[in-house]
């Protein structure tokens, strides 16, 4: 037994030493997950707030109340401007819309006459453009609710499922954490495995009296320990710099370790399959972004199309995101519950370990 443990530890130590020898690779490996956190957060920096110029040609109380309603519409970052400034900004692509309050806005409303608010939209992309198109009616409804509550009686009465809203960055950064753990694990374990084949040292390892499973466990342990450092860095950035404080600390720790372990096993599998670090790199980077978009990073996948739901359920990233969102925000993202998601991930881990063993066995016989 102690002999086997020595083999495991020796393999792990060797891989850690190898990882640390290549300075550039170490830096890339350690900071890659954080890098992904920053990179993907750029995607949501703008959030849902559209930079919008407001041209106030009337400064009466109703006009002010209308602009006030716009600021409460969860959709605009308002910039008071002159007509010329606003036109200049929209032509340069610096803002998304120009809302023009006409000079007779108050007078017409006092006389119960129709009045039109001008909205010029930089209609580059329907998704973003429709947000503006819908936000103006919301502003009108809010305006009437505050100024003429007896006139427009139909209003939405909102009841929220959770006591508070969660902003884009705190929500998405938790999903990104899973992708960061994925890329860290895949690269570290994949490179370590492929390197043995590339340099031909796998032959020597297999010819030694050490048991194969012990070599495999040692290699995975080495990759796990190196990736753990990058996982801790990304967790520290998320918690202490981004400021997303977990609701369940124990779950964060447990789910992070489990997620990392699964991707270490997948990394070992692809490293053993390809026996070359280049395809491992290509696959790790190439799959990160699609899986981020496909695996429910933005919300429950049941809100999306059935094609996405089908694909998402194939990959462990989806279940890991569901667990991590629960750990950080106590959110429920699917109907499997905590134990269901954990069971699926455990099944993945066991299945993948079996697969790695088979692939190693086959690679050995071919070798």
């Amino acid at each position: 037994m102690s002999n086997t443990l020595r083999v495991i530890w020796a393999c792990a130590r060797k891989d850690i030493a190898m990882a640390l020898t290549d300075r550039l690779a170490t830096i890339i490996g350690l900071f890659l997950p954080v890098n992904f956190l920053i990179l993907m957060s750029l995607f949501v920096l703008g959030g849902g707030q559209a930079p919008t110029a407001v041209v106030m040609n009337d400064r009466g109380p109703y006009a002010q109340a209308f602009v006030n309603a716009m600021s409460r519409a969860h959709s605009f970052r308002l910039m008071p401007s002159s007509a010329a400034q606003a036109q200049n900004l929209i032509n340069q692509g610096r803002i998304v819309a120009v809302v023009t309050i006409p000079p007779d806005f108050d007078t017409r409303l006092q006389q119960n006459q129709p009045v039109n608010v001008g909205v010029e939209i930089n209609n580059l992309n329907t998704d973003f453009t429709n947000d503006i198109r819908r936000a103006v009616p919301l502003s009108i409804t809010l305006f009437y609710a505050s100024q003429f509550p007896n006139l427009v009686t139909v209003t939405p009465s909102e009841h929220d499922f959770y006591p508070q809203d969660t902003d884009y960055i705190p929500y998405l950064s938790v999903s990104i954490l899973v992708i960061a753990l994925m890329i860290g694990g895949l690269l570290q374990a994949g490179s370590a495995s492929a390197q043995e084949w590339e340099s031909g040292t796998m032959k020597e390892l297999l010819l030694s009296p050490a048991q194969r499973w012990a070599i495999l466990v040692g290699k995975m342990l080495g990759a796990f320990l190196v990736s753990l450092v990058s996982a801790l860095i990304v967790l520290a950035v998320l918690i202490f710099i981004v400021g997303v404080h977990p609701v369940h600390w124990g779950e964060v720790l447990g789910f992070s370790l489990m997620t990392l372990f699964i991707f270490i096993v997948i990394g070992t599998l692809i490293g053993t399959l390809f026996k070359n670090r280049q395809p491992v790199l290509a696959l790790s980077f190439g799959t990160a972004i699609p899986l981020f978009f496909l695996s429910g990073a933005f919300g429950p996948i049941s809100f999306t199309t059935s094609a996405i739901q089908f694909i998402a359920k194939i990959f462990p990233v989806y279940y890991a995101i569901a667990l991590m969102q629960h750990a950080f925000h106590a959110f429920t993202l699917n109907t499997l519950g905590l134990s269901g998601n954990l069971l699926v991930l455990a099944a993945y881990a066991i299945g993948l370990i079996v697969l790695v063993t088979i692939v190693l066995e086959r690679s050995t016989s071919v070798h």
Partner: protein
Amino acid sequence: MFAGQNKFLQVLRIIWAIIKKDVVVWLRNPANVAATVLPPISFLLVQALGAAAVGRSPVALVNLDNGPQAVQITSSIVNANVFRIFQATPDQAKTLLKDLNVVAVITIPADFSQRFQSHQPDPIDVTVNNLNLDFTNDIRRAVPDAITQYYQAQGGSSPIRVGLVEADLRPRDIELFQYAVIPTTVMLLLIGGLLTAGLATAREWETRTIKEILLSPAQSGVIIAGKVLAGFITTFILGLLVLSIGYILGYTRPEGVYWVSTLVIVALVALFGSGLGVTLGALIQRIRPMIAVSINAALYLFFLSGGVGVLAFEPVWLQNLAAFIPLTYGTHALQMAVFYSSADLLGRDIAVLAGSAVLTLALGVLAMRRRIAS
């Protein structure tokens, strides 16, 4: 005269030999081809799959009133084209919300019509699964949109006097997926240039073949030109391939003279990527870090140039940063040419891209010369 001509032909032959060798090596390595095309292709695939769901959240609609106003508001909500509606009973709606099949439940209360007729406050209940602002704000905007449409349907008798006159800056809206094709093509061009030129350069050092090349009678300037051109040709062909596929599928169809500006921009981005690739390849000198750095650099530049969303939606500091990224100008010029048949700011875009390409080429030549010398 003949000696000069012969020398020129010899230079061309050397350049052609390097191009042929680099392109064949690139094509023979499936991992390199995958690293080049996988990120943009997978990104496009994801966009295509997701585009259908964007902007129309699934909601359960419960109508507890059979009065005329309740029927009208229900029809307004259904026809507003802002939701994917599941008409349900209260119990069904509860289950749908609990099982995360819908983002929200909209309930028309039993006394809706009666309250409306007696001019009393007449709220529509909206229960939202507010786990993130993206979906929540979509609902917060969409329900008032439907209510406004309900009042608009009343014509002159509508109490809402504030209307909306929309003027669009551009002649037509572009669908989300079609919009994504251009920045993704630009990302492909950049990754293509970086990887083909960068790997071809780094490989010469890693496999030590640079020694043999340098010992040949070829001049170092000619070797560098061959490397850059190999990257450029491969990337440009990749760009043409993507444009052709986009043309067949109807996503990228520039008209008339705008084909020329489209091709010029594609060529300039490919040249910029190849120049950057040669620079990084000569500096890094190893294949694996080169792949990691190239994909990372391309993704950063893609995201920072507003590749995923619309740059105008981003914070001012990010817009200012994007102004220094050449891809911003490539994306803008292609959008104008392909979607709007417009040459708006084309001169500026070409100048920035050409300047950036020249700069990266100069850096590439400098980096290679220094490494060759050392």
